[in-house]
């Protein structure tokens, strides 16, 4: 596990505080413009919903057979978007990917607010909204309970659990940052942060319990997120309609959710980086990693999509096959092909470094990917309902402006919540960035351009050597256990042998005149290393630090000294060979 360089290591802790806290202050004009747009969208949604609430669901142009339309698909879309935070925050925490540290805060906020946005849709889509609490399992005076066999009720349980879990996870992760804000704030903000920081003072007892609690919550959040979207998929998979009744829906939906979430992270990343001037923390290296992750998940989703089509195509279930053909060639086909294009073809732009660095293009790509995913959710519902079992009720119907208005409003609601959040809570996690910077500064051996010799294979090997030395340093100083230490030591010594042999062979082949001297240096080095290893094997604990210091010194000296000497010679002999 090497600590890769993703943000500049020389940032001081106080500077991190200042930069991030500044983002909480008076925003720039673009922020107000974005906020205004979100509020307008929200009002559109509220107007549409008021109309629908007063007149009836018919204004949404729902019908028999189209009982479900954009409301359910938006619901699934927003639940899917909420998997961004879980992926970035919880899963990458477990895999110890440090590059998540500057960006996971807003991803987790995205999770919570996506869930709050998704929670609008069960309300909007019900015919009698005022009775929605009947779906909750409470002891009613009439002895009535909800029906536990219904997938919509499993949704209720799952989403309430997920909402609680992600709010708690977000809150717990925020506490040290809230303490920093409290210490620097004045006035009403100080009171707010004093409440939110729950009396955090940074003692070792608090940190110890914090780390354990955070990790445990992450461990539970991951199976929860997988189960939530699987349960949402059973809304469709548990019904009997062709095109919905597909067993691969749970993993398909989870993959689609991770995909949506990653694209959402990309969008918010670019937006927040610009709005809050976070270029130093939300670096392009981290963005590249997010893009690569999105690309991988795009391929997973495309594969699952493909096997869904393949299993229908090769099966004997005629209604299902007809629905698939209807999706691809019927009146809904433009939306189908938009989904295919945005979900499977467009992500290939994420595979090229030059395109990844073009932020405007990436913003457009991430928005289009989410458009494709929205289309995907709709394509699951509408064509299956259009071409279900009863032939008399086959019909092609399009949603009305009321539905569009409400869906539009949900985006406004989401944007509004996020924009308010980033002004109250720092969207870059200060204490995690400090940890990142601190660990990186403590890396023993920093690879520098001055170590580059120009011979590609040798440079690669030197780089790997430096990385192995750093891993050994990490294993030693962070007490990662005897097993890791043994393994790293073994890897290092065997790679040293490999590298020295390779170098010597290269020098022999090219007829290097000072070869004997060079080889003597190598042999001395080999002796020293084996004496260190022997001392380690008999249980000498102090040898590790000595070994590391020796390696660092020797490598620095040797690469820049003796190895540099033969560079010119190798170049010459290569040119001779070419000629």
């Amino acid at each position, binding site marked *: 596990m090497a600590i890769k360089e993703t943000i500049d290591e020389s940032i001081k802790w106080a500077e991190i505080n200042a930069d991030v806290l500044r983002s909480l202050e008076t925003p720039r004009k673009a922020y107000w413009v974005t906020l205004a747009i979100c509020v307008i969208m929200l009002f559109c949604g509220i107007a549409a919903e008021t109309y629908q609430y007063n007149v009836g669901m018919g204004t949404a142009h729902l019908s028999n057979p189209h009982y479900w339309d954009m409301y359910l698909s938006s619901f699934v879309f927003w639940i899917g978007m909420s998997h961004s935070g879980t992926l970035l925050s919880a899963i990458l925490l477990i895999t110890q990917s440090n590059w998540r540290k500057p960006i996971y805060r807003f991803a987790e906020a995205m999770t919570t607010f996506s869930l709050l946005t998704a929670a609008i849709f069960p309300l909007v889509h019900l015919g009698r909204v005022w009775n929605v609490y009947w779906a909750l399992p409470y002891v009613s005076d009439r002895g009535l309970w909800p029906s536990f066999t219904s997938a919509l009720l499993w949704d209720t349980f799952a989403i309430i659990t997920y909402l609680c879990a992600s709010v708690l996870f977000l809150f717990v992760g925020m506490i040290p940052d809230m303490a920093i804000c409290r*210490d620097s704030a004045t006035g009403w903000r100080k009171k707010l942060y004093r409440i939110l920081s729950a009396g955090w003072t940074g003692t070792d007892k608090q940190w110890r319990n914090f780390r354990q609690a955070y990790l445990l919550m992450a461990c539970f959040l991951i199976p929860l997120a997988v189960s939530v979207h699987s349960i949402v998929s059973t809304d469709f998979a548990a019904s009997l309609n062709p095109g919905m009744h597909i067993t691969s829906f749970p993993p398909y939906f989870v993959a689609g959710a991770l995909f949506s979430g990653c694209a959402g992270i990309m969008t918010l990343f670019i937006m927040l980086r610009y709005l809050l001037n976070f270029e130093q923390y939300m670096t392009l290296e981290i963005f590249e990693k997010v893009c690569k992750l999105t690309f991988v998940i795009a391929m997973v989703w495309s594969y699952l999509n493909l096997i869904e089509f393949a299993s229908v195509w090769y099966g004997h279930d005629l209604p299902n096959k007809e629905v698939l053909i209807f999706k691809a060639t019927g009146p809904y086909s433009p939306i189908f092909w938009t989904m295919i294009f945005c979900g499977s073809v467009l992500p290939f732009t994420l595979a090229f470094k030059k395109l990844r660095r073009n932020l405007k293009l990436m913003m457009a790509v991430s928005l289009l990917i989410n458009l494709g995913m929205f289309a995907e959710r709709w394509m699951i519902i509408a064509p299956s309902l259009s071409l279900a079992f009863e032939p008399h009720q086959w019909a092609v119907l399009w949603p009305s402006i009321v539905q569009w208005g409400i869906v539009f409003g949900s985006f406004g609601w989401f944007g509004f919540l996020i924009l308010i959040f980033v002004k109250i809570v720092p969207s870059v996690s200060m204490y995690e960035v400090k940890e990142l910077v601190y660990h990186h500064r403590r890396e023993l051996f920093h690879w520098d351009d001055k170590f580059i010799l120009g011979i590609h294979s040798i440079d690669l090997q030197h780089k790997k050597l430096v990385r192995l030395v750093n891993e050994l340093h990490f294993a030693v100083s962070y007490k990662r256990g005897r097993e890791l230490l043994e393994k790293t030591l073994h890897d290092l010594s065997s790679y040293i042998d490999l590298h020295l042999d390779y170098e010597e062979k290269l020098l022999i082949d090219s007829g290097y005149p000072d070869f004997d001297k060079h080889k003597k240096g190598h042999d001395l080095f080999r002796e020293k290393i084996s004496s260190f290893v022997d001392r380690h094997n008999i249980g000498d604990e102090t040898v590790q630090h000595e070994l590391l210091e020796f390696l660092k010194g020797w490598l620095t000296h040797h690469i820049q000294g003796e190895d540099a000497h033969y560079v010119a010679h190798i170049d010459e002999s290569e040119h001779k060979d070419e000629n």
Partner: protein
Amino acid sequence: MKTKRYLGLFSDFDKAFSTVMAIRGGDIPDLSVDDVTISSPIEHPEINDFLGKRPERISNLTLAGALFGLVFGFIFIASSQAAFMVQPLGGKPVIPLPNNFVLIYEMIIFFAIWMTFFGFLGMSGLFKNSMRIITNRPQTLYSERVSLGEIAIIVEVTDEQEQPLVHLFREHESLQVKHEDIE
């Protein structure tokens, strides 16, 4: 009897750790490392080497929460299904198990996470601190410079240990020393 609480601020971890090692080494008579607390802006991975192994008991609470969720979930759901015979379903059993598995899974995670959260607040002392904030009592000894990046060492001492401790702090280049009386 411990009468005073002292806070010494240091500019980085190394100085703070060397101070702790000095206390551990017995430089101050009768002062053990268990009376020492370190306040820092980040958690240092080697901190257990200096302060000794201290208990981490939240995982027990999480397990308790998960088990409770499992048992309570099943009893709650099965009983409500058994009680709600007013509207039975045709062709399905009254207590279907596949549905119940899904719901019990969610309840396990629900209770595990709430127990972890409350366990964290309780065991880390944050609950006590919050209660002090709400009831307007004085807070634990703390320096706001910790959030800026300095490390604080908090030690509880008796009257005799006071002077040696202050001397030790000054020796290790502390930036500030505060104290309060333990009520």
